[in-house]
């Protein structure tokens, strides 16, 4: 794994130099907090089991960050690097493919955590948002959900013929899911029909798992989510590894 540290640090710097990607990962979720916080506040509500709107959006927006990175960031960057010949240049060095993938995953996870910290910081400062779970448990769930979303992203990049197509596929999958999964608007306010569709969306399971663990539920209460997301991870990563192209 020689070069792993340097590549991860470099990826991280390059990520921060992309204004659009950085905006959607770091700034967009806190802006949603400002917007929806101003509209709904954070008073405890029966609808959300006694939690306020801002309490439950913390885990939801974390899922939103994971979706943004996994379904937009990963496919756009990866297929772009392939199309431009960046991957070809890396392949001409002794660096192993696994090093490249691990560095990319680490970068995206660190960006997710950074986004979460800013999000929770804003939520805490403005609305004293509640957290009743275990930090380690939520951390593991974020990493697990992240790997699932990223594996879908790599699969898109592997199957799409070019960078433009990868971007379009990512958007077509992500944007409906962003609104229908509870990642941006709580499912509790959605009509019954939407909620039934939501069950079939991977991101919905991320939202449910993270919210449960956030408020102290155990993994045992979320076996459905673990199985669904674990299945997507295994199949997604397997297919991505099978179809990944360096050029």
């Amino acid at each position, binding site marked *: 794994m*020689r070069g792993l540290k340097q590549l991860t640090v*470099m990826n991280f710097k*390059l990520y921060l130099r992309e204004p659009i990607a950085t905006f959607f990962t770091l700034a967009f979720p806190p802006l949603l907090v400002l917007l929806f916080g101003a509209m709904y506040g954070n008073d405890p509500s029966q609808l959300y089991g006694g939690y306020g709107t801002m309490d439950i959006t913390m885990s939801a927006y974390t899922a939103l960050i994971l979706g943004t990175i996994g379904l937009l960031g990963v496919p756009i960057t990866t297929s772009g690097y392939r199309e*431009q*010949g960046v991957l*070809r240049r890396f*392949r*001409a060095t002794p660096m192993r493919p696994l090093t490249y993938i691990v560095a990319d995953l680490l970068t995206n996870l660190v960006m997710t955590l950074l986004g979460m910290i800013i999000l929770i910081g804003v939520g805490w400062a403005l609305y004293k948002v509640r957290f009743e779970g275990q930090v380690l448990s939520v951390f593991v769930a974020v990493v697990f959900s992240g790997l699932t979303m990223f594996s879908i992203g790599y699969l898109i990049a592997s199957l799409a013929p070019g960078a433009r197509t990868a971007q379009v596929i990512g958007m077509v999958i992500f944007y409906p899911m962003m609104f229908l999964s509870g990642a941006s608007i709580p499912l509790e306010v959605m009509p019954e029909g939407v909620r039934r569709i939501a069950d079939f969306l991977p991101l919905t399971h991320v939202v449910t798992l993270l919210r449960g663990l956030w408020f102290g539920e155990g993994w045992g209460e979320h076996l459905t989510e673990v199985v669904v997301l674990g299945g997507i991870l295994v199949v997604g990563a397997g297919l991505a590894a099978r179809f990944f192209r360096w050029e």
Partner: protein
Amino acid sequence: MTVVIEVVGLRKIYSDVVAVDDVSFEVRKGEIFGMVGPNGAGKTTTIECIEGLRQPDNGRVNLFGVDPGQTRSAIAERIGIQLQDSSLPTRIRVGEAMSLFGSFYARQADSGELLERLGLIEKRSASFSNLSGGQKQRLFIALALINQPEVVFFDELTTGLDPQARRAMWDLVRQIRDEGRTVFLTTHFMEEAERLCDRVLILDDGKIVALDTPEALISSLEMEKRIVLTLPGAPEKLPLSDLPQVDRIERSGDRIVVYGHGERFAGPVITALEHAGIDFLDLRTEQPNLDDVFLALTGRDMRE
């Protein structure tokens, strides 16, 4: 002479197009070995099979005595590669690219010194996307040298460079050879091959047309040499037709073209003119070059 690259019966087929067809040759340690031919001749396919980036369909490749396709990581430590089509992340800076790529290798060159040599030291904090075509090309050369490679591969090294930058690049390649490294390059500029390479392999349509030193290739043609002169007010009868080196003379007004052969051809012609007291202007000799070799061997003009 130690052989560092050995290619035997190399064959590569893309769907139903034979890109490389039964190609065999050896590259010796410390030489500049050039592969020339028109676009689509199979140069890049051949070089990438040797680099271990592509698998041959038939035949075998030996680099340092091992199959580069099987042991890529170990081979990659000892070679430097400049690819024909590749890129870097747009926002990476020159200095960052050097230290990143350096970190992939066990052995590293001094990146500051390399940038200095390639005239990029001023550009150390410039983003890749802000570099000119020539600067990008030089950066890729610096990256190819970052691990102090024993063999360096340049695929279309000077394509897209202006003539001055091209010449500077030739000097650099010679320096690299003089440091004891072996250089394997491809080009579709015959002049580049002729001026730069110790040995030249001419590839056309996936097959080897010729392989030798540029001088041997040119002299093997036994083509006529030409001297072009302007002789204002010269007599009708010139004292040149009797010279054994001279084959024939063409004349149109003051302008005279003398066709001949032999190692020393210009000398006797000039001497004979001076003896006869004939003033000449604009003397120019025209030697056959690798373009003529290509034309003679394939029946096609390289530049078409």
